[in-house]
C-alpha cells in the first residue's frame, strides 16, 4: 500500500510568526566560522541567536553577522546582563542594530551556575513588552516563574534543562513536563542539552521547541551533531503528537496469548 502523503500543518507559531523548524541554534563557540555556518545550515534552524557586544574602538570591520543576517532570522540575546536595567538597554540597542523587536531575555543571577534572576526577569519582561518587544525569556524550570513570565506578556518561556553549557540534559523532566502542560505560551527548552536524546526528550515532554548552542558547537563533529539535533527534535515532536504508551511496572506481552504451541 503506497504511503499517504499528508501536508504537515505542525508549524511552531510564536507571536504570530510561523516556524517550520522547532530547533533554534546559537552561533558561538564553533571551531571556525565555516563550521558554524555549515552547522547552522545542517540544523535546519530558521532562527539563530546572536549576542550584542561593545565594538572595538579600533574600528568595526565585517562581522559574522554580515554573513548570517542575510540567510537566517536573527534573535539577539541579552547574555551576560545581570540587571534588568542593562538587559533592557541591550534589548533596545539590539532592536536598533538589527531592526527586530524580538529579544531572548537573559538576566544572570549567579555567575557560577548562570542561573537566571527570576525577579529581574519578570520586571524586565513587563517593561520590554510595554515597549513593544516580543520577549522570549531564558528562565528557571519553575512553573510559577514561567506562569508569571507569561502573565507579564512573554511570547514564549524558555526554561533551562540544566545549567548553560553543562551538557547535563534535562535535570528535572517532571518540571519541564508540568510547565509544558500549563503554559499558555510556547515552551522552548533552552540550555543544558548535551546530545540528541536530550533534545528528543524535551520535545517528547511537550516542549514546542529547543534552543541549543554548545552541544553542537563543542561536539567532535559539529556539522554531524547539528543534523542529529534536527532529526531528534523532529522525532521527539512526532512522538509527542503520536502519544507514548503509559509506563508500567510490569510486563505486558505483545504477542497473542491464545493458541500457544503445546498449550
Amino acid at each position, binding site marked *: 500500500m503506497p504511503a499517504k502523503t499528508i501536508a504537515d500543518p505542525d508549524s511552531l507559531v510564536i507571536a504570530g510568526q510561523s516556524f517550520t523548524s522547532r530547533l533554534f541554534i546559537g552561533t558561538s*563557540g564553533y571551531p571556525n566560522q565555516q563550521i558554524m555556518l555549515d552547522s547552522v545550515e545542517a540544523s535546519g534552524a530558521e532562527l539563530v541567536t546572536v549576542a*550584542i*557586544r*561593545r*565594538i572595538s574602538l579600533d574600528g*568595526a570591520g565585517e562581522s*559574522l553577522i554580515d554573513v548570517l543576517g542575510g540567510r537566517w532570522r536573527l534573535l539577539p*540575546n541579552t*547574555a551576560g546582563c545581570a540587571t534588568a536595567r542593562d538587559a533592557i538597554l541591550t534589548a533596545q540597542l539590539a532592536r536598533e*542594530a538589527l531592526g527586530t523587536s524580538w529579544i531572548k531575555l537573559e538576566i544572570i543571577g549567579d555567575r557560577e551556575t548562570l542561573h537566571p534572576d527570576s525577579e529581574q526577569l519578570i520586571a524586565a519582561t513587563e517593561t520590554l513588552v510595554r515597549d513593544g518587544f516580543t520577549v522570549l525569556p531564558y528562565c528557571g524550570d519553575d512553573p510559577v516563574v514561567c506562569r508569571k513570565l507569561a502573565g507579564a506578556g512573554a511570547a514564549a518561556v524558555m526554561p533551562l534543562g540544566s545549567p548553560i553549557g553543562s551538557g547535563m540534559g534535562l535535570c528535572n523532566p517532571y518540571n519541564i513536563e508540568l510547565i509544558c502542560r500549563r503554559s499558555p505560551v510556547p515552551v522552548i527548552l533552552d540550555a543544558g542539552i548535551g546530545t540528541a536524546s536530550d533534545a528528543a526528550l524535551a520535545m517528547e515532554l511537550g516542549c514546542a521547541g529547543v534552543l541549543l548552542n554548545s552541544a553542537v558547537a563543542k561536539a567532535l563533529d559539529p556539522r554531524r551533531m547539528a543534523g542529529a539535533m534536527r532529526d531528534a527534535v523532529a522525532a521527539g515532536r512526532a512522538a509527542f503528537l503520536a502519544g507514548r504508551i503509559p509506563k508500567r511496572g510490569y510486563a505486558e506481552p505483545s504477542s497473542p496469548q491464545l493458541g500457544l504451541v503445546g498449550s
Partner: protein
Amino acid sequence: MRINGKDWLLAEQSLGELLAAQGIDPATRYLAVAINGTVVPRGQWSACRLAPDDDIEIVRPREGG
C-alpha cells in the same frame, strides 16, 4: 566622557564626528549607539551633540547563544 567603559577625552562636538574620528563608518550595518542609557537612532548621529560627562555605548551583534 566614557566610551564603551573606557575614559575618553572629549575632542569632538557630535556623535557623528566621534565615530568618524574612530574610523567607524556611520553606514556600517548593524551598529547601534546609546548615550547615557538612551538609544540614539542612526538618523540622529550626525546632529547628536556630546557633553563631557556622556557615557557612550557603541555596539554591534556578535556570535552568541
